[in-house]
């Protein structure tokens, strides 16, 4: 193969945009698949109890053996790694992959890298998933994905330094917190908050709204209010008091509260966003039927309860709260205490009022992305 030929193969000159799958094509695909008795599950570290309880039960109940691999570290890097493989029509070697909603997942969908799901084989999902988890702008009708676990993007603040109750997103723009505000570097996350601050619903936003949000955020930056645009490391900064208030993900804050650190989480009155880690079947998966069975199995409330007790994020299955409450009643000592904290925490089980404030991310086409990203990246990466 010539070097030039390799270059073409390497970065795919040919268009990859997938035509939306026709309903009968999906049916046709699934009708040809059979159960193979094994499934390979690729997930993030610390997303499954060490004894692999839910997977062991699945094996006992269905006879399907599993391989569980903690191979996903970052959505961007995972996509960067998956893209050339899937582009070349090769298999990733996984039957289920977990990815957060966002640009990379959108690219997976747009590029036709995901096998559409056969909902006739997902009865537990239909019966047990919360309504919010069936209506997600980035994947209408759960055509490609079902949620694994969720969280909320809101504001965390350090109660040692912030002596008022934070309720509004305007606090992030308040000059009295100059140099003590942390924002997220991710274009989607920070863009959403810029729009909330202006009273715009990001899910329904358009280019003019992004420009306005960009200006608002740029002014915030130029006034020296922002200390830093953070990745995951924000949580250390806010719990130590390097920043006093910060855009934050609920699950992180809950863990810090359990550790006794002085951080509080709030969904601002203007709105917050909900993010979800989703299970999907990548194109070329060897055992799609088994994968679908496992996905559905994880939607049994008892199984989901076991998972959520370990992960401590927001579960897409509302019935888990009652199950954990029951469990807390019979538990003793430390265990009882931590279970009670979980059940009562709005960070694991957001209230109806919280849910009402939550918005979805804006869904972007490739052309829109090329407008959207530079607006916010020019602020976070100046």
């Amino acid at each position: 193969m010539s070097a030039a030929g390799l270059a073409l193969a390497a970065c795919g000159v040919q268009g990859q945009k997938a035509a939306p799958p026709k309903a009968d094509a999906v049916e046709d695909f699934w009708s040809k698949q059979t159960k193979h008795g094994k499934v390979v599950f690729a997930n993030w570290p610390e997303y499954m109890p060490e004894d692999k309880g839910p997977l062991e039960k699945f094996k006992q109940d269905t006879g399907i053996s599993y391989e569980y691999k903690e191979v996903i570290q970052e959505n961007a890097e995972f996509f960067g790694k998956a893209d050339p493989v899937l582009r070349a029509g090769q298999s990733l070697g996984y039957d289920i992959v977990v990815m957060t909603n966002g640009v990379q997942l959108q690219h997976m969908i747009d590029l036709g890298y995901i096998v559409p799901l056969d909902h006739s084989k997902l009865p537990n999902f239909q019966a047990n998933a919360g309504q919010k988890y069936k209506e997600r702008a980035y994947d209408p009708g759960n055509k490609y994905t079902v949620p694994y676990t969720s969280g909320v993007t809101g504001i965390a603040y350090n109660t040692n330094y912030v002596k008022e109750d934070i309720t509004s997103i305007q606090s992030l723009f308040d000059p009295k917190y100059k140099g003590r505000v942390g924002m997220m570097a991710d274009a989607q996350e920070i863009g959403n908050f810029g729009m909330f601050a202006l009273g715009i619903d990001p899910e329904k936003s358009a280019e003019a709204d992004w420009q306005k949000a960009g200006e608002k955020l740029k002014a915030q930056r130029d006034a020296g209010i922002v200390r830093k645009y953070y990745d995951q490391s924000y949580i250390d900064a806010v719990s130590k008091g390097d920043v006093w208030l910060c855009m934050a993900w609920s699950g992180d804050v809950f863990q810090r509260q359990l550790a006794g650190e002085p951080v509080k989480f709030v969904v601002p009155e203007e709105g917050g966003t909900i993010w979800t880690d989703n299970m999907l079947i990548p194109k070329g998966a060897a055992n799609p039927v088994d994968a679908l069975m496992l996905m559905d199995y994880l939607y049994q409330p008892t199984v989901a309860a076991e998972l959520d007790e370990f992960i401590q994020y927001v579960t897409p299955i509302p019935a888990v709260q009652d199950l954990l409450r029951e469990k807390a009643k019979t538990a003793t000592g430390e265990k009882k205490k931590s279970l009670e904290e979980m059940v009562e925490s709005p960070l694991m089980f957001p209230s109806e009022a919280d849910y009402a404030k939550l918005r979805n991310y804006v869904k972007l086409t490739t052309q829109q992305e090329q407008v959207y990203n530079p607006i916010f990246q020019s602020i976070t990466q100046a």
Partner: protein
Amino acid sequence: MRRLTPYLLALPSWMWLAIFLVVPMVAMASVSLQTGNAIDGFAMTFSFSNYGDALSRYSPQLLRSLLYGGLATVAMLIIGYPVAYWIAFRGGHRKSVYLFLLLLPFFVSFVLRTISWNFLLSDNGILFGTLKGWGLLPADFHVLATTFAVVGGLTYNFLPFMILPIYVALERVDPRVVEAAQDLYATRTAAFRRVVLPLSLPGVFAGVLMTFVPATADPINAQILGGTANTMIGNIIQTEYLTNLDYPTASALSFTLMAVLLVGIFIYARALGTENVLEAAAR
């Protein structure tokens, strides 16, 4: 046979570099001239304007990277040279032990080192919190999220790559030569300048090459330790590649960076008094 020796010595590395570096670089060069997007596909259009566009958008970050890389390299040279000197001449039979101890922290994952640094340097943490408690520092003093932190982080992370080659070159110098020079010249400074320093220059050159180049391209320190105006070119390449899937821009920026670094090393070699950079690298 003797004429063949260098070719045989170079052969395995040549194969490695040809297959795993040259071929991908040719591919990257091709990508850097394409246009399109990841979803609809890229097409070769020999779009040399990709370079101009990328440069006009990101020249502040590129210049900043060169500045930070340069500052960190100077800091490493100042901090590292005395260490290399002392180990080479006075390390005795424990020379390799000292070198090993200098490198040992880097056998542990950078994530753990980073978390620890953030813990130590926290605004009100174990270090600054205490000093502020004693009234030695103003209350809003901070190091994290500053330019100083980024340059300091680069200095910290690449320091062993400066010390080791300087040591390797100095270790060869016979201490008796140094003593003789000290007898010969009036001052120790003169002896150092006329004898030791020239002998250590190949090591200094190697050290600068191994620190300035990767430090300038590094994205991690700016990401973790920087504030709102410390973005380096490595971060931009990362974002263009992984988030925006703009492979042509990312490739064009990478080539630009490599070219600029090559020119920088060339100027540096000239300053050292060598005509040809590639010859300089070989000396």
